[in-house]
């Protein structure tokens, strides 16, 4: 079956919408849980201390969620949101390969590599 540009556009559009919807739902669930857990005690955002290490990586966030930390569930939603455009680029690599469009497979792989390096904390 031929993968036309129109079909590719439709899949990308649906992928983006699904990603944003899922991320927003997880963040909302985390917010509600967060309020139910304590609801008082305001963090101080005037002074920058940086997030604790468990909130800085996907592995740490997943561990935090499994231990029942609501802040980690919100962070998981935000990670899903960040992953949405990355998934779109990964899909494009496959789609251009299916179209046998070598130039764009290379272009898309370069972008995917840059994203991976940034997310892996290599920068």
């Amino acid at each position, binding site marked *: 079956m031929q993968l036309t*540009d*129109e079909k*590719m*556009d*439709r899949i*990308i*559009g*649906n992928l*983006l*919408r699904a*990603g*944003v919807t899922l*991320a*927003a739902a997880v*963040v*909302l669930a*985390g*917010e509600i849980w*967060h*309020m139910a857990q304590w*609801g*008082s*005690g*305001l*963090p101080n*955002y*005037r002074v*920058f*201390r*940086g*997030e*604790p290490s468990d*909130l*800085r*990586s996907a592995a740490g966030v997943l561990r935090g969620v499994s231990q029942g930390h609501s802040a980690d569930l*919100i*962070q998981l939603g*935000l*990670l899903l*949101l*960040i992953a949405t*455009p*990355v998934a*779109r*680029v990964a899909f*494009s690599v496959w789609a251009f390969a299916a179209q046998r*469009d070598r*130039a*764009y497979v290379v*272009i*898309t792989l370069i*972008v995917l590599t*840059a*994203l991976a*390096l*940034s*997310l*892996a*904390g290599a*920068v």
Partner: protein
Amino acid sequence: MNSLEFTALIWAIAAVAGFLGALTGLGGGVILTPALTLLFGIDIRYAIGASLVSVIATSSGAASAYVREGYSNVRIGMFLEIATTFGAIFGAFLASRIPTSSLAVIFGLVLLYSAYLSSRKEPDGPEAAASDPLARGLRMDASYPTPEGPRPYHVQRVKTGFSLMLGAGALSGLLGIGSGALKVIAMDQAMRIPFKVSTTTSNFMIGVTAAASAGVYLNRGYIDPGLAGPVMLGVLFGSLIGARTLAGANTRVLRIVFGLVVAAMAVEMIASGLRGRI
């Protein structure tokens, strides 16, 4: 103020920012960071982290519709994303190296320029009759839907556009904004891509650009769930309502008022930065 009240307040301000951003085409990010830093005294690094996340949400949400309708040019977007992602990583790296007061001043200057841009009418450069050989090689020429049927277009000055996109990416990573205005200028003015295709392709690219710097922000601890969560939900909600309202609204007066508010915020950001209060 307890955490519930704080969350509700942040959510409401983010919703207003998203609403106005969608209505004026300026995006929610540019007014969110000044609002968070100037009104709440939130450290600018937490503010740009939260703002960047919301940028991914609104741009991906809007892009999903434009791509399916056939306005965005996926090939042009993918190619230029090489420039914006590397630019964004460089910008985000720079953000953690320079003093916050300098960040505030640069933010103010970019804000002033955005206010100026939004006050102008939508310029559509003259259509290109022929293509850059590079654009032909990369199969960038396409067509977009109009009421009279699909309309073909050509793409010029790919290298100039690519260089401008490096700058747009760097600003996005440095300040946690989408820098859609600069992306549109690169495509519409330099590459002579039709305005509608430029704006929608810019929207398509913003998510990937922002994701590139979001990785750096995340690893540096700029993204706080208690702040970025309500900001993201608020901006997304506001921009959805804004996009609905846009269909029938006369936005001329609103654009002027919004332009003045943005300009005032810009001056305040610059002044606070120079006095070392941010």
